[in-house]
């Protein structure tokens, strides 16, 4: 490894490191604009000039362009280099509008920092400044081109890194323009990163525009709860309002970037209808009163109907602590164990995924970039977990082949092979891949039982005659790959798939240099929910138990059972039958409005808690503020407020964990039940090893990956027994799917994210559309069991035949389906006028 001297300090760094990065390791931040660790060197801004005094390179050179070499002696402070850098800043400031007082970037602006630290103060240029016309780039990004210093970061991120092309550079010389060919919303779901990456105020955050300076904000490291990836963010709050999110570097998870759903999906915390005080039977009550009422009524039901009459539903968006506390409450009270999924099928799939995610197989998004082939099974990354799409693109830029087995018209910002097959055929596709991509002898060598498994796979694959043809070159590519990764979704796939995907990954691992497994789960803490779910299948679903009278009281903890539930009327009727419905939540959900007792909870931004992302990585979200109703909502938009008090307005929300502990103590009359839950202990009981001495509190970037100690048996015969691919002629199965914007629970409550929603439409294959006499752009009336939906039609080539794809869209009253999977016929799909 080369050894060099930078500013009289010796450093040894790996071959291929740039001098600018080596200096950074010494704590020397060489000024830069175009260089960015994620984008690499460019050499355009000329700001990082340093003087090479000795060694193989001599003279003034750009430190981002020169690889370290043995014997280099570098000075970052030599007068020649300083004078040059000062001139560069002067050049960049020639046309800059000096509008820092009205620029949102002011206060955390790299250009400000470099101008001040570089010593450029007196303006020598007397010419007129160049001016540009700005564009409306949609709801997220404010454009102000006059501030541009032409560092090219935006274009490089947008086009090269993220793979979208509707923002670029136009013109030449000092008239070079960064924007779109015409005004309009940016098409990339990663556009918000332009705000983070722009070294000055060309792209600023529109929803938080003029809401405060960096130093006005209370800020804290937090996590994104808008999908299962657990991207790291920084939250900024001011006047009790959550104002803005920025990406936070986590080199294992999201790198430097986050998606727009995460960046703009946080405003549910400011929701004007957010429950902010406890209520009992619709009337406001003090906490003590509400807890007392809850405990009294729970006791009464227990005495009347027994302990089994109380059911608890947790969720996939609540913290590990709350999940564990809920489980403890149920145990202490002798209630049935809590559920965390209202959809039993999703529960089974998620639990299978979590139990199969062996620590030797699990890969992070960062690890995925080293793969040479990535097979995505039953997942639509842009719609389900956008940052995964960005990771896939990085893998491809490093040479990986991408393939997607999914019924939807998946689009990725990277070239990939798409095999659009119905979910029911994913099984035969995976079996065909196992049979063709993993040699028989390798399977035999490993274990005689596996040969049998292999043969069974071959039989399943043989049942589906067309599958080999549709997979095309994929089996061969998989056989040739050295480091494949299997990405498996858990939403649209049948229950056998997560386990089969794990089998494939495990078999590949035995014959390849390396192989990885990456699940996409449903919910920020779905992993934790699966860990803390009861190991045995509960008797009857939640709704059945209510309907048959087994459940008389229901405790909902940060969950809305209406979310994703297909039959709204049935659920409403069921909840109405309950003698007692208690809701602990922060979202103004329909279930909340039906609750007898409402106990307002804190969001993840108001309390410290842990969450486990889809790879089992436990991360910490730190509180950014105390909570309370945003000042703008109580003061009528004026400041300072006109009413005064000694309490925090709207600040009565409590951490769900504490609420459950208080309830536990009240119910049992034992004060020790109020103690905080020992999370690690609870997890260990579930067979999860957690490094106890982890320095959780020292550094917000600390995270630990956990996995279940006794994973479900691989190659289980159960996986391949049930076969179900009965296609009725002329029938279409309805596939309910997620969209980037408009379907996810939390971001659907965020006004900023709502602005990016597309109107929902029904997607189908071209042949199916022809059979139904429909074309793209037509309007249809879709007759579901209990509802009629009017929506547009999109015809796609790369879609599985025989399915109709419908988003669980907020703007769509889709929750009137009594039977899942829903089958539709031509009579149900009626063409109508716009």
């Amino acid at each position: 490894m080369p050894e060099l001297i930078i500013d009289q300090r010796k450093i040894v760094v790996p071959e291929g490191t740039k001098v600018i990065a080596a200096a950074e390791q010494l704590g020397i931040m060489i000024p830069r604009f175009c260089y960015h660790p994620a984008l690499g060197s460019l050499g355009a801004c000329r700001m990082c000039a340093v003087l090479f005094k000795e060694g193989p390179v001599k003279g003034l050179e750009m430190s981002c362009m020169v690889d370290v070499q043995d014997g280099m002696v570098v000075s970052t402070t030599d007068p020649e280099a300083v004078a040059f850098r000062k001139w560069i800043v002067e050049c960049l400031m020639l046309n800059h509008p000096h509008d820092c007082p009205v620029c949102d970037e002011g206060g955390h602006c790299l250009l400000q920092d470099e101008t001040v630290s570089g010593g450029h103060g007196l303006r020598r240029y007397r010419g007129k400044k160049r001016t540009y016309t700005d564009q409306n780039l949609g709801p997220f990004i404010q454009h102000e081109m006059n501030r541009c210093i032409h560092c090219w970061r935006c274009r490089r991120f947008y086009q090269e890194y993220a793979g979208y092309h509707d923002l670029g550079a136009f013109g030449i010389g000092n008239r070079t323009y960064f924007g779109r060919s015409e005004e309009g919303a940016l098409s990339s779901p990663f556009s918000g990163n332009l705000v983070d990456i722009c070294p000055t105020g060309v792209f600023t955050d529109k929803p938080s525009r003029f809401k405060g300076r960096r130093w006005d904000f209370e800020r804290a490291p937090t996590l994104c709860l808008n999908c299962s990836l657990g991207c790291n963010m920084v939250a900024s709050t001011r006047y009790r309002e959550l104002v803005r999110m920025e990406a936070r570097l986590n080199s294992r998870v999201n790198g430097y970037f986050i998606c727009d759903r995460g960046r703009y999906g946080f405003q549910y915390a400011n929701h004007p209808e957010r429950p902010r005080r406890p209520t009992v039977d619709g009337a406001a009550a003090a906490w003590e009163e509400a807890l007392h009422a809850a405990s009294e009524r729970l006791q009464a039901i227990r005495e009347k109907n027994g302990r089994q009459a109380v059911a608890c539903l947790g969720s996939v968006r609540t913290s590990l602590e709350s999940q564990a506390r809920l489980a403890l409450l149920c145990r202490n009270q002798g209630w049935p164990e809590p559920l965390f999924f209202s959809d039993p099928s999703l529960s089974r799939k998620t639990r299978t995924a979590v139990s199969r995610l062996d620590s030797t197989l699990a890969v992070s998004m960062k690890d995925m970039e080293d793969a040479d082939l990535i097979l995505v099974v039953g997942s639509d990354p842009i719609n389900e977990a956008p940052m995964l799409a960005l990771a896939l693109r990085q893998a491809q830029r490093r040479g990986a082949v991408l393939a997607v087995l999914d019924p939807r018209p998946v689009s990725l910002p990277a070239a990939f092979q798409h095999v659009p097959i119905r979910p029911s055929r994913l099984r035969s596709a995976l079996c065909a891949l196992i049979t063709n991509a993993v040699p028989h002898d390798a399977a035999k060598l490993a274990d005689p039982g596996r040969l049998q498994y292999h043969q069974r796979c071959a039989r399943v694959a043989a049942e589906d005659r067309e599958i080999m043809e549709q997979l095309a070159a994929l089996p061969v590519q998989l056989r040739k790959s050295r480091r494949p990764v299997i990405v498996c979704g858990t939403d649209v796939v049948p229950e056998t798939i997560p386990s089969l995907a794990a089998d494939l990954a495990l078999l590949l691992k035995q014959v390849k240099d390396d192989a990885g497994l990456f699940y996409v789960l449903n919910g920020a803490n779905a992993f934790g929910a699966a860990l803390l779910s009861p190991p045995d299948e509960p008797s009857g679903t939640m709704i059945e138990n209510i309907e048959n009278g087994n459940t008389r009281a229901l405790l909902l903890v940060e969950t809305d059972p209406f979310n994703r539930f297909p039959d709204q009327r049935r659920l409403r009727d069921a909840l109405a039958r309950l003698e007692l419905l208690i809701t602990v939540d922060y979202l103004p959900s329909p279930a909340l409005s039906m609750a007898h007792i409402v106990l307002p909870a804190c969001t993840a931004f108001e309390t410290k808690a842990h969450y486990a992302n889809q790879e089992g990585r436990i991360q910490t979200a730190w509180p950014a503020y105390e909570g309370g109703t945003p000042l703008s909502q109580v003061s009528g938009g004026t400041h300072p407020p006109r009413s005064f008090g000694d309490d925090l307005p709207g600040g009565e929300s409590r951490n769900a964990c504490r609420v459950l502990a208080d309830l536990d103590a009240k119910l049992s009359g034992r004060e020790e039940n109020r103690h905080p839950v020992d999370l690690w202990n609870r997890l260990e009981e579930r067979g999860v090893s957690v490094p106890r001495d982890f320095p959780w509190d020292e550094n917000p970037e600390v995270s630990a990956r956990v996995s279940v100690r006794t994973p479900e048996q691989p190659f289980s015969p159960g996986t391949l027994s049930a076969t179900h691919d009965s296609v009725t002629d002329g029938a279409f199965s309805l596939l309910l799917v997620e969209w980037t914007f408009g379907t996810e629970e939390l971001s659907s409550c965020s006004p900023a994210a709502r602005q990016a929603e597309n109107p929902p439409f029904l997607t189908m294959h071209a042949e199916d559309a022809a059979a139904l006499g429909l074309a793209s752009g037509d309007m249809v009336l879709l007759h579901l069991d209990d509802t009629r939906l009017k929506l547009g039609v999109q015809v796609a080539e790369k879609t599985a035949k025989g399915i109709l794809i419908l988003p669980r869209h907020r703007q769509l009253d889709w929750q009137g389906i009594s039977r899942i999977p829903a089958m539709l016929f031509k009579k149900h799909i009626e063409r109508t006028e716009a």
Partner: protein
Amino acid sequence: MSEYVLLQDYHPGRTTSLEKYRRRGGYEGLAEALRKWSSAELRQVITDSGLRGCGGAGFPTGRKWEGIRQDAPLPRYILANADEMEPGTFKDRLLIHASPHMIIEGMILAGYAVSAQKGIMFIRPSYETQARIMEKAVEEARQEGYLGTHILGSGFDFDIKIHRSGGRYICGEASAQIKAIQGMRPRPDKTFHMVQHGLWGKPTIVNNVETLAFVPHIVRKGGAWFQSLAEGENNGGTKLYCISGKVRRPGCYEAPMGTRLSEIIEELAGGMLPGCTFKACLPGGASSSFMTREHYHIAMDFDSLKAVGNRMGTGAIIVFDQNTCLVGATLNLIEYFARESCGFCTPCREGLPFTRDLLRRIEAGEGEESFIPLLKDMCHFMTHAYCAFAQGAATPVHALLTFFEEEVREHVRRKKCPYGTTHRWPGTGIEDSCRN
């Protein structure tokens, strides 16, 4: 008069036909090379001849060709650079008129030498007439079996396409040019080597058309003959000198490499215009340095000019007389360069408009003493730009401040241009005091 090589068939207003080119031995060299020589032998012949690139840098052509490794991937490309946008330079245009087939034969031979199968001529869009001449000639060559598969019965395949540029100066730079052809934003890029990852990521040779036109002659008549054409040591061939400015007969002349400047001005161009005396010239296009009377008799070749701190460039000589304001002349060049900067790096994108503003002010009589050291500093800083463009653009400014500092000071002192030149820069806020 010395021998004409490139312009042997040149008649103003008329394009040399294939017939005429063949009568003069055209395509014989190709036939001979394909029959007798391996590609390595052909490369050796060119290397031995000492042919140097005529696009400006003067890089030995043989060495460039040898840069493609034997085992480098196929296909490989020959790129003929006819994106002639250097101010004062018009030799390529003339050459295309003089003999399109000479360029085609040169490209085919270059292709043979490096095992390339595809040739592309990148031509300036304002040369539409010349592009059509080339297209017609390429079609003729195809008909005659000089292009296509199994050229002249050999196993060698080669074809040529004419690509019209979008029309920006920076596209003349090789790496920007290949980006332009690939439909990308043209900008210089130093992250790859042309001979390894050029056009479409494949080995590519970029040569000026004048360079390529010499190749058939060298093949036919040998390196020794080529060297004998030139004046002085270490020189080879003739050179197309473009001369413009205050001379009697501006134009493009073919003369031995190393012909003296005085000879070119006085004999070829017929001397200075009546009443004009030589004050200075730019010897190699707009990005070379002003040459004063001191070097009036200098030999016009790469090494001699380099020895006096100047550059041969494209061999475009722009002559200024005693009544020309050199501040104005330099400003005129900077106006061009500031407009044509690709905008990629800061010193060029911002430094040139800054320089332009200062020069405009000096020329308009608004100059200040402090501008002079500032301009000097900026000329130095611009040498640290990403590519050679800004450095080239700063060269005449640097020369102005080195050799004609007194003239600049006079502008500042008298608060007007002593030559009384007038300019208009609408919208800049700079008033030209000389206007009244």
